[in-house]
């Protein structure tokens, strides 16, 4: 559905931001992209909606070469919430902001009204309906960006550093939204440094370093490779570190705290019983 074939991207300054990238994202997948600052993660995302076009190689989105498609066409299918919401919000009021994309994609006024109500309610932004987006807090702006995108219901949702500036309650909610979208069959791509946020969702993990993809696989195997992660300046999730320090390891690393607690309680009762 999204295919990178030997993609290289060179900035005007001559810096190679992507180097021979091959990546295939299938429908309904949950994929996370991790790696150091400046590894090329956001550059990769910009290629998916045609904001950047490859210097060499090809990017195909829903069977279309991004060189032959406009960003508007691609955005109908792929919604991106960028890291800095200030670059994305520009309308006079919150409701106009949500309506903007919907109008552009030709939705009817009554559908637009319904979708606005849904999005405001879902993200707890009703009270700001008539407020200018610039007056919202950083965390609220990020939620608004996501609300705008979900309102037009794209097939693929890309979140660039969604947890920055979000507190525990919002992170939990975000994690629920991601799982819900994914269970509805949406393809979700998350670019994030927040390993502890990603780990319980057990996404496919793509690791980038210096413009290259250096690893790509299941969370439990990629996140277990401490040497590789160190090179990409990523730290291991706490629960993997715990797992690796156990004398008798269960079959696979703990997905979450409850999983770990259950296992440890069992191990302790066997020992004392």
């Amino acid at each position, binding site marked *: 559905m999204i295919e990178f074939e030997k993609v290289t991207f060179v900035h005007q300054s001559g810096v190679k931001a992507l180097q021979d990238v091959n990546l295939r994202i299938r429908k309904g997948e949950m994929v996370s992209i991790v*790696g*150091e*600052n*400046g590894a090329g993660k956001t550059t990769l995302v910009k290629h998916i909606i045609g904001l950047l076009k490859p210097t060499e190689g090809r990017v195909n989105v829903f069977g279309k070469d991004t060189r032959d498609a406009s960003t508007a066409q691609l955005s109908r299918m792929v919604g991106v919430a960028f890291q800095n919401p200030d670059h994305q919000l520009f309308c006079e009021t919150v409701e106009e902001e949500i309506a903007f994309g919907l109008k552009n994609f030709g939705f009817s006024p009554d559908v637009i009204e319904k979708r606005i109500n849904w999005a405001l309610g879902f993200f707890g932004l009703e009270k700001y309906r008539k407020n200018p987006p610039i007056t919202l*807090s*950083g*965390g*609220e702006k990020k939620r608004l960006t996501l609300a705008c995108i979900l309102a037009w219901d794209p097939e693929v949702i890309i979140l660039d550093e969604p947890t*920055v*500036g*979000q*507190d*525990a*309650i*919002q*992170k939990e909610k975000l994690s629920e939204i991601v799982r819900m979208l994914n269970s509805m069959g949406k393809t979700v791509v998350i670019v994030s*440094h*927040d*390993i*502890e946020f990603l780990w319980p969702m057990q996404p496919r993990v793509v690791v980038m370093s210096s413009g290259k993809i250096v690893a790509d696989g299941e969370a439990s195997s990629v996140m277990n490779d401490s040497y590789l992660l*160190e090179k990409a*300046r*990523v*730290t291991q*999730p*706490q*629960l993997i*570190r*715990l797992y690796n*320090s*156990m*004398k*008798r390891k269960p079959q696979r690393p703990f997905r*979450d*705290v409850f999983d*770990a*607690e259950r296992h*440890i*309680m069992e*191990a*302790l009762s066997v*020992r004392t019983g």
Partner: protein
Amino acid sequence: MALLEIENLNFRYLDSEREVIQDFSLSMEHGEVLVLAGPSGCGKSTLLRAINGLIPHMYQGEYKGRVVVDGMEVAKSEMRALAQKVGFLFQNPENQIFMFSVERDIAFGLENLGIPRQEIRERVDNAMRLLGITNLAKRAPHELSDGQKQRVALAGVLAMDPKLVILDEPTSLLDPLTARELVYAIGKINKEKGTSFIIVEHRLDLVVTVADRLAVMYEGKKIFDDRPEKVLLECDVEPYGVLVPAVTKLQRQLSRQGIPLPRRLLAPEELPVELGV
């Protein structure tokens, strides 16, 4: 004398209906590292402004109570004088660095204070050494990575030799390893120079390793304020929007089930050893 004394502070912005800070008291000794946590909109940023003097000097509103930094009452002192006591590192270092070279950038605040050249040189060199960026001295700040920029901005703050440094979500834009290096640097500066820190963070796994205290704020009030292990292992902080690191949560759950465990925060590698599993 305490480094920071906040006594029954109440603050309401001119255009807001409710008090953003409510009857807030906090005392900090010289050399302490305090982590301030709490959900978005709980008043953390307002509190920071009340410490560095932006409140009441730049933001107007209804102000009750007292904030005293190193013997200087904030409401009655000039911003310029306060700036020498309290340093502030923003979330995004790009708001803070702007000169043509790293060393010029770090020296900027000192030049404005009219400090002799030789002393500026020494302070800048020392700040760069503490943060491990001496090799970047001649580089242009805009060419640096985010983590490097963050350290340059912090060096600029430290060169002013403040008693207290406030960091507002310093690691949120950094990759995990860079974030860990920044937290190590904070710990080192605290030990070597005795500088105190207030760190606002949502992500606690890194910062609690250098913290002496953890304060939790909710709807303008202080809910918890104690040693990090006390707050995280003995209190229920989740309803107040605090993210408990996975292994700490596990340690707390196991303790509550009656399994004997030490009362300090255990690293992921330590917990299985303590449990013998």
